[in-house]
């Protein structure tokens, strides 16, 4: 199409210019318009394109190397007993990190139990309030502050507020520290999810005489549920991998966090992340191997949770 137009256009222009005795193309340097390898701008383009492509490839190498090394060094250690046995003492062969997996699950579950209700209820408040409301701005500011909150400081806070007060390291202290880090993710995604519920649906409910609470529970929350769940899953994924806030709140323990059917919430509790940190610094081959295996298990856990969470909201968008 384009070439046809050009062909019909050109002679006509020439014709009219011949009438004036002027050639409008005289001023144009045609070779200048063509792509030529000798011109600096072309060379610059090629150079920059190569640089950007090269840098991207270079940036991807370490990222994939992490995954590759995990599969290689973690994969060779993978065996069923890892999930059922306790961490080995130095120089002791075998062993596993069943207690750490259990501990991580306990800590994250308690943290979710704290942060999900707080986050979702605050999100309901945020989404149902005018954006200029003072308290709403304050809540949003608090969420922003917490989003960029260094994870170690959550640990420092839990140490000062719980470990010092209760007099010992515990799963509760670890969970409180982690829940602080989960809160902004849960809150901000839940707010976004509730806000994206079509106004029509809300108005229909109000028009039928539903109270605000009925509207929220029977219309807004069910509709926004996949989005809220995405936020929770992302927060859980992040929480499971957090090490710094657990280092001096939940500490670590070489024993099962459950004894005699009771979950020991007030004792030092093991977690996968802290196990990796502790064993990475050990000079013993077996423990380092376990650190790699634990990393693989942790990364698989985190990425699966992440992907499941993301797919939930993606399906919602497609609908």
């Amino acid at each position, binding site marked *: 199409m384009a070439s046809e137009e050009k062909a019909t256009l050109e002679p006509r222009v020439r014709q009219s210019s011949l009438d004036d005795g002027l050639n409008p193309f005289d001023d144009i340097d045609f070779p200048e318009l063509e792509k030529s390898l000798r011109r600096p*701008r072309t060379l*610059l*383009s090629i150079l*920059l*394109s190569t640089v*950007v492509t090269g*840098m*991207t490839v270079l*940036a*991807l190498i370490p*990222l994939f*190397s*992490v995954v590759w*090394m*995990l599969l290689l*060094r973690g994969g060779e250690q993978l065996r069923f007993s890892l999930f059922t046995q306790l961490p080995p003492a130095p120089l002791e062969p075998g062993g596993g990190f069943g207690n750490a997996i259990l501990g991580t699950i306990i800590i994250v579950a308690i943290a979710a139990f704290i942060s999900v209700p707080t986050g979702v*209820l*605050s999100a309901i*408040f945020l989404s*149902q309030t005018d954006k200029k409301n003072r*308290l*709403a701005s*304050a*809540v949003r*500011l*608090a969420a*922003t*502050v917490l989003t*960029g*909150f*260094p994870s*170690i*400081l959550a640990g*420092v*806070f839990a*140490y*000062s*507020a719980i470990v*010092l007060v209760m007099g010992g390291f515990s799963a509760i202290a670890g969970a409180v520290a982690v829940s602080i880090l989960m*809160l902004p993710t849960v*809150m901000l995604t839940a707010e976004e999810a509730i806000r994206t519920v079509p106004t029509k649906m809300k108005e229909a409910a109000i028009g039928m*005489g539903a*109270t605000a*609470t*009925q509207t*929220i529970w029977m219309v807004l929350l069910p509709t926004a549920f996949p989005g809220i769940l995405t936020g929770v899953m992302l927060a859980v994924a992040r929480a499971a*991998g*957090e*090490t*710094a806030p657990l280092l001096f709140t939940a500490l670590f323990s070489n024993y099962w966090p459950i004894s005699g059917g009771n979950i020991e919430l007030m004792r030092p509790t093991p977690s996968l992340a802290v196990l990796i*940190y502790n064993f*990475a610094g050990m000079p013993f081959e077996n423990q*380092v191997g376990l650190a*790699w295996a634990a*990393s693989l298990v942790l*990364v698989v856990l*985190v*990425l699966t949770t*992440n*992907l499941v969470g993301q797919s939930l909201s993606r399906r919602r968008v497609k609908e």
Partner: protein
Amino acid sequence: MPETMDANQVSRPPTTYQVFVDRFFRGLCYLFAWLSVLLVVFIVVRIATVAWPAIRQHGLGFLTGTTWDPNTGQYAILPEAWGTLYSSILALIGGSAFGVSAALFLSEGFLGDLIFRILKIFGTQFHPFWGKWPERLEDYLKNLIELLAAIPSVVYGLWGLFVVIPLIRPVCNWLHLNLGVIPLFGTSLSGPGMLPAAMVLSIMILPTITAISRDILVAVPSKLRMASYGLGATRWETILGVVLPTASRGIFGAILLAFGRALGETMALAMLIGNANVISTSLLSPANTLAALLANNFPEAGPKEVSVLMYAALVLLGITLLVNMIASAILLRASPVPEGGG
């Protein structure tokens, strides 16, 4: 709510119970909103309270001294503050150069072009399935990079310890032997040190920079690009003259956000930086950061040291809060697409 509908009365005012539930639930939401605000205030106040004895005892000298000795009770954090800033800035230089490059690569059609050309060889560039790959692959790669941001930092630390350090050690020692006059290579790398720490840190912040920058670059109205191409600009003249200036504020915000993350990053640094109380410009020397100091000293700290550590935590909190607030303010202003865009 159970619907007790009889034929005569379709609508009715809410019962006392329903009104009560409504009031109660509104109050509950209000309460929890207040709780989240108070939580942040409480965190700062709590840390400051425990730090207060140390603040009174050490004052501002805490920020300028260089010794950390629990035996003599001398505490100061200048080396840690230096290490925090130095490692973060180094990581930021690497992370933003590579991160923004990757974002450009994934947003300005470089990858798409490449795939398109490969498809063209097979003559399938407009195939209903294969023809979608240029765009799809860019999306996949971006999601993948974003996913890598979710890998826990302790895993990056482990990887740095057993992969990066053995890999760069010979190179570093060669650099020290041959270029030791330059202060950057003034010491030899004995294992953990500033360079491996900064390298791993820059790899960790790269996904953040790439993901946010790419979103911002994609949001640059295509009209602007088209106008620039229409004037005869090449792709790179368009990128450098139009796209990057339009997106610059957002990219700057992304970089600042990554800076905030780098400042507060703990585990990878605690594992890789060597935990030595020195101020050195050498990339190969061990150093320490505020976050790593907290991570290493808290578990065995006595009551007096706890107070000092809380003071250090307060300093870290101040620095990261400042950087993060500036970053989110910039990103907030950068996010709306310019008028007429889309």
